[in-house]
């Protein structure tokens, strides 16, 4: 994003130049500073839902999500403190306890963003009780499958389908722990008329919740790096 005022801020003590329309996360990434993320995906609108990318901003009463917070002149951001690490670990533990994440039998084992995040943050066991929910699996689509047990409600599928594909097949139904991804008006995916079977949702899903049929454990590799390119091309097209 560009077009705004140019400002300077400090991230982890380093002076960074930024456009005021950027997010702290974008500025950090540009400057080679790593902030862990989960629901965020370059190319989609950020929602600030997973709260993994929380950073400390001097003067703010509580940490702020880097993916939706815009920089301000003179802002001092800290992306890594023992406190932040503890919070991030606990949030990830909450998410792992929420679903049924059994890596050994998962199609994305070894290529899973949730798994990788757990490794990065050092979450190797849960200190809170796992909830072991019973959630529905939707295998009605001829090419793809949805295992809600592995869903972390990042809503990347909802966003990619609405914003990029323009089909808006996916949405969220229900509140709290009962919130679930649904296709169309909660029809089986295979019967969802709006679905174009483009597979973008599968590619952006950070876990094994959305997968291609016929893939065995560890075989499902996701590809979503073309998304920013796609949005940039779209924008160019619109501006022409």
């Amino acid at each position, binding site marked *: 994003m560009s077009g705004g005022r140019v400002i300077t801020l400090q991230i982890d003590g380093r002076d960074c130049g930024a456009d005021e329309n950027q997010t702290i996360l974008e500025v950090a990434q540009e400057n080679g500073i790593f902030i862990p993320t989960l629901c965020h995906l370059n190319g989609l*609108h950020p*929602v*600030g*839902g*997973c*709260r*993994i990318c*929380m950073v400390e901003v001097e003067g703010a009463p*509580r*940490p702020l*999500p880097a993916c*939706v*917070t*815009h920089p301000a002149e003179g802002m001092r951001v800290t992306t890594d403190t023992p406190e932040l690490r503890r*919070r991030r670990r*606990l*949030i990830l533990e*909450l*998410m792992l*306890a*929420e679903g049924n994440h059994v890596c050994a039998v998962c199609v994305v084992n070894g290529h899973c963003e949730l798994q990788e995040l757990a490794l990065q943050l050092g979450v190797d066991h849960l*200190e*809170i*009780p796992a*909830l072991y929910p019973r959630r529905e699996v939707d295998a009605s689509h001829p090419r793809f499958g949805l295992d809600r047990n592995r869903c*972390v*409600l990042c809503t990347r599928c909802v966003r990619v389908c*609405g*914003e990029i594909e*323009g089909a*808006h097949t996916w*949405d*969220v139904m*229900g*509140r*709290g*722990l*009962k*919130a679930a991804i649904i296709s169309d008006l909660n029809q089986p995916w295979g019967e969802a008329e709006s679905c174009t079977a483009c597979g973008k949702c599968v590619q952006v899903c950070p876990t094994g919740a959305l997968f291609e049929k016929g893939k065995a454990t560890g075989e499902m590799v996701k590809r979503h790096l073309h998304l920013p390119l796609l949005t940039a091309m779209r924008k160019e097209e619109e501006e022409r």
Partner: protein
Amino acid sequence: MNPEELQRIAAEELQAKSAAKHRIGVCTASGCLSCGSREVLKAIEQEAAARPEANLRIEGVGCMGLCSRGPLVMVQSGPVPAENSGAGAETAFLFKELTPADAPALVAYLEQQKSDPPTVAAGSTASSLAAKRCDLSAPFFRRQVKVVLEQFENIDPERIESYLAAGGYRALLDCLHHRRPVEIIDEITRSGLRGRGGGGYPVGLKWSTVAKAGAFVPQAGRSSRQSAGATAADRPDGPRKYVICNADEGDPGAFMDRSVLECAPHRVLEGMAIAAYAVGADFGYLYVRAEYPLAVERLRKAIVQAEKRGLLGRNIGGSAFNFQVEIRLGAGAFVCGEETALLASIEGRRGQPRPRPPYPAEHGLWGCPTLINNVETLANVAAIINRGADWFAALGTEKSKGTKVFALAGKIKNTGLIEVPMGISIHEIVHEMGSGEVGGIKAVQTGGPSGGCIPAEHFHLPVDYESLQAEGSIMGSGGMIIMDEGAAMVDVARFFMEFCVEESCGKCAPCRVGTTQVLLLLEKIGRGEGTAADLGQLEELCHLLQQTSLCGLGQSAANPVLSTLRFFRREYEQLLVDNTGKSNETDGSQSPQQGPQEVKK
């Protein structure tokens, strides 16, 4: 309608009222209606029709506060008091718990025109009536200062004439004809009015932010399907600003806004119209919970009446100002009281909050600058315009001006609705006004699921935004639940956490899963199976909720737990297995369920 016509209607109404020897007002708010005030009203009307010589004027009026003793009936005699004078009628009696069977005695008594109230000696029927008379000099009534609830006993909620006679819509016309928007904002700013929905944000500051923001051409949602609920008429082509009245009151045990909407819908509409004129908006939404059918019905009626009289719609009061109001019903999600979730809900999207900034004042409904105020906040506006900022600022404390309406519930004798000046002590509210047994009350819970418990030792504290916050509670929207020794604080915390689990929207992970984990720990501790480690984890999770949740619901969801931990930690520790080995101390007669059930009522 021009000011002269308005005065004529008000004068006619006043004359009709004054012509009657006695005015009988029967409460027709939800509380009294549910215990049969409609039948009482009918019985009195029938009785009065049979005795026209009694010269009675009978009408349904608004809430008179003592909701636990309904149906309430107010009898006033003598000239109608001048508006805004603060004085009551020459003589006024309030009767509680009236039944249709009391109607003949009441009418017969009034027909005799005695100047004294009915006494016990006056006969068998009259004696039952005498027993039902409320003492209006009791602290419950005497301590109140009414701004928002002013004249409720004289206003028929279903007739605009009645509101006009009480001085209604004068402030709006005064603003439209004699004041510039910037002067109105200045008046509100000087009054020191702060948001009554719980946040306490300075109202004048919010208004001026919206006023300064440039009107904006409404935008569709991010994708076409997302804004499917919105019609083309909602999103006009021209630049716009909006005013929204947040009437999505949802705290357990709170019913202040419901009462204001049911009893003086026009007062809220007038406040909205003044706000709209001040900030430059021409369209307003009233976001009301669908669980308030009577409020919705009366608001609908009020909007039609106001439009008919030219007080809403185009060229209001003969001025160039246009303002249209529509009602939107909330479908029962607590989180929709959060302003960004409320906006999403009005736009026809899933009622979920979004990160702020941008704040609605700059980027609100369909991207337009939007002023969102709570019902009670808007109900204060006309009074401030009529009587001036200085009068309002003289009420209350240095930082919290004016009055606050509280809904009293729980273990006190007088439960119901009160309006008190800010700075009054909790002791005065609970023990003097509520007649709570001194020594028998353990704590008061304020602010609902976002608030906390204040122990009896701290009842000397003044009620204002800062004091309550310093105690780990919040002023909140005004729910006050009074608990006695029978309330087990771990269970109280559990009840509010259950509520938050139920109402978490699921967007952010800490609130979606964290609330459930906190609830599991509270249940475990409550069963007497918790350990010291569990208590540590409980606190850790509570801080996580506070620090990392997306919206106010999650950020404040832990308050009931943290505040009970702060003041009643012993109760938690007594339940831990590895500490004393003892299980729950409460015996059968004081069931641990008692507190929570009280709340559920």
